[in-house]
């Protein structure tokens, strides 16, 4: 199942022109600056925005096109808005049951309980929405969307209206939701950090057009795209914990292309993690260094080099399937005579666990 999307929406000066295919599995982040049309795209997929001449096919089911327009309430979606938007006249339980009652056979007590457990809201069920904090309300809203057992989950910047503490509070819940559920998730965001933590795929949107789409780690590190050229350029590496060293508080994490040691709280061996490596924390040497304080040195191949300014350049390095960005001075590159295709070593000063 894939999701084929084709929309041409004209709203005054703004035009949204989308023609793409969204993968069936994992989290696809719709990423772009405000006003780029992210929300409009999500609303059109939900049927909340009526795009004439649109086309939308989810798996084998035509939701829109050829004279068909399935109204929102007949689309098996879960939608989380930027504001929690709980029904103020119903309790938390009432809010969650609203969708369950209408999903009929598609939902079940087990699905409902899973939603309640995943978002940790068991203790809130009897309360009214106004008795909850903003973060709790948004958790209820997410559980409400999941309890109706949707076949696609749409989230429109669900954390944007929350404070930093509450964001940090909800992110782990979202991570476990995505790991446990086997449905496509579309996640609208303009926060790079959220995308790095949650997304598998990305659609880059700018001014109503898709400028790039693909795997999240590729989009972050592609030298053809803007993200790799920003001052905070970074690589995101999916890895799994292979060992935890209690004595030094270091976790060994393995990925396709090598292994890193990172400072971390105790972790269970085998758990999935994401590593964030800033381009400015990666340096390049021709020989593996001995007697250095840097723990993480891996052999890599230079994939591409782009000059950022008179003094700085960005180098894209490849280790097996993992891409790593390095921001170095032009003078160093000149001294080392770096060229595309060279076999070198990447020295990673800091790799942070995204948790």
């Amino acid at each position, binding site marked *: 199942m894939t999701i084929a999307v084709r929309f041409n929406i004209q709203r005054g000066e703004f035009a949204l022109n989308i023609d793409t295919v969204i993968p069936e599995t994992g989290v696809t982040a719709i990423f772009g600056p405000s006003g780029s049309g992210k929300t409009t795209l999500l609303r059109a997929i939900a049927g*909340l925005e009526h795009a004439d001449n649109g086309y939308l096919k989810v798996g084998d089911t035509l939701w829109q096109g050829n004279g068909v327009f399935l109204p*929102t*309430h007949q689309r098996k*979606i879960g939608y989380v*808005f930027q504001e929690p*938007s709980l029904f103020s006249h119903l309790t938390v339980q009432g809010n969650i049951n*609203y969708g369950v009652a209408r*999903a009929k056979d598609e939902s079940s007590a087990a699905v409902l309980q899973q939603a309640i457990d995943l978002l940790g809201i068991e203790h809130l069920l009897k309360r009214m929405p106004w008795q909850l904090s903003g973060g709790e309300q948004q958790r209820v809203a997410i559980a409400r*969307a999941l309890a109706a057992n949707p076949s696609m989950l749409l989230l429109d910047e669900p954390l944007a209206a929350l404070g930093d503490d509450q964001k940090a509070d909800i992110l782990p819940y979202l991570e476990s939701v995505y790991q446990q559920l086997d449905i496509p998730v579309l996640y609208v965001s303009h926060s790079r950090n959220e995308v790095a933590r949650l997304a598998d795929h990305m659609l880059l949107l700018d001014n109503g057009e898709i400028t790039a789409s693909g795997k999240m780690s590729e989009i972050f590190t592609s030298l053809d795209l803007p993200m790799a050229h920003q001052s905070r350029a970074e690589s995101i590496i999916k890895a799994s914990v292979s060992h935890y060293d209690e004595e030094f508080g270091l976790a060994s994490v393995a990925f396709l292309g090598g292994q890193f040691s990172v400072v971390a709280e105790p972790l269970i061996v085998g758990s999935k993690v994401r590593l964030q490596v800033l381009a400015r924390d990666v340096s390049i040497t021709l020989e593996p260094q001995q007697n250095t304080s840097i723990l993480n040195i891996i052999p890599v191949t230079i994939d591409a080099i782009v000059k950022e300014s008179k003094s700085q350049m960005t180098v894209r390095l490849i280790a097996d399937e993992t891409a790593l960005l390095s921001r170095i001075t032009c003078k160093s590159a000149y001294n080392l005579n770096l060229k595309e295709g060279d076999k070198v070593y990447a020295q990673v000063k800091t790799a942070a666990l995204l948790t």
Partner: protein
Amino acid sequence: MILSGQDLTALFVTLKLASVSTLVLLIIGTPLAWWLSRSQWRFKYIIEAIIALPLILPPTVLGFYLLISLGPNGPIGGLVDMLGGAPLAFTFTGLVIGSVFYSMPFVVQPLQNAFTAFGQRPLEVAATLRASPLDRFFTIAVPMAKPGFITASVLGFAHTLGEFGVVLMIGGNIPGSTQVASIAIYDHVEALEYGQAHWLAGSLLLFSFLLLIIVYGTNRRYTVGQP
């Protein structure tokens, strides 16, 4: 007996008129207010102006036109006559029709405000949770507009209670059928029966006051008159 039998009957007719009119107004006014709150029609304001007319129109003017149209030669009366119905002027049914026009803005406006106040979002959420449009209306819009319904009912009821001009024009002041308390008071004053007028006026005053006390007391979170 302090209140005469005829006075009691007038009070009863008044309460019956207010109750029936409020019920009819809620049935007609709810879909109308809903449509006004959601419609994008560019000439919507014309309908809004028509509904608001009784707020500024002298009741005798409204009553006069209603009398004409309800009469056997008027459009409504003629239609009823053609269908074999009894004439409407000088009947209780005629009074209800008059009251519905007269009190319409007091029901439609609070409802429209209440429906507008919660915006589109709760209905969109309900749609994503598989609720059909009718389902959304009854399970989301109506409960969320509860303060508006309370205000609309109270204002519609109380305003009909105090009706005078319209009733005078189309009611005919027939005791037991179309004579309401406000006109009975007027009759007493005309006949210089101040004692009787006092009792009837006092009853109406006390009743209206109690009604508002109960509503304000039980709905402290809501403000009657400003939903």
